[in-house]
């Protein structure tokens, strides 16, 4: 599964994207964030306040309780500041 990061999430994790193999039991967006956060200090720094992190699955906004089964591409980013 491809993970994509933007803005300060990208800067803190230190890469724009990566492919990951999820361990068993990671079913929702919230599970994914919790697992990622445990992967090292750059992830811990990026995902320190998971409630702030916005998530898109296959380029559509989703909430943190969304199931991630079937996702090809999951993007994590801060609240948007376009417009």
């Amino acid at each position, binding site marked *: 599964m491809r993970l*994509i990061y*933007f*803005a*300060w999430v990208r800067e803190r994790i230190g890469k724009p994207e990566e492919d990951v193999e999820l361990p068993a039991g990671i079913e929702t967006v919230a599970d994914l964030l919790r697992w990622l956060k445990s992967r090292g200090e750059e992830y811990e720094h990026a995902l320190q306040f998971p409630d702030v992190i916005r998530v*898109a699955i296959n*380029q*559509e*906004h989703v909430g943190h309780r969304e199931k991630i089964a079937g996702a090809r591409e999951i*993007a994590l*980013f*801060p*609240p*948007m*500041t*376009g*417009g």
Partner: protein
Amino acid sequence: MAGAVPGIRIQREDFDVAAEIAALTRDRADIGAVVTFSGLCRDEQGALSELELEHYPGMAEAEIGRIAAEATERWPLQGLTVIHRHGKIAPGENIVLVVAASAHRQAAFEAANFLMDYLKSRAPFWKKEHLTDGSHGGWVEAKEADDRAADRWKKSGG
């Protein structure tokens, strides 16, 4: 949905408001009202060198397309164009343009206003400040007021 197929463009280049209005209104006489919104890069303190706009390619077009399609369902529009720039933008330069054309003025005003509120809170763009002293001013923080502005368009009837 009647009529208008929204035109969505994500680009580095600046835009020409008059050309975008002309593209929607040319050779037709059923449009009575055109509302445009231009969002510009502001720098009241003189400390900003430029804004850098990062975006999520693919999703930016898709999400603005979803918002624009909702606008054409909610208001009778004859035309709708949304252009959002990315890359480095200097103070005083354009960032975003919405053009809404309708037979009547209230539909054009409301659709453009709705588009801007939703772009602010849902379009995947992020602004980083570069300061005149060479330092980074950091990422612009999202405003809670923008979320509240978007919320006022929610239909109470579901």
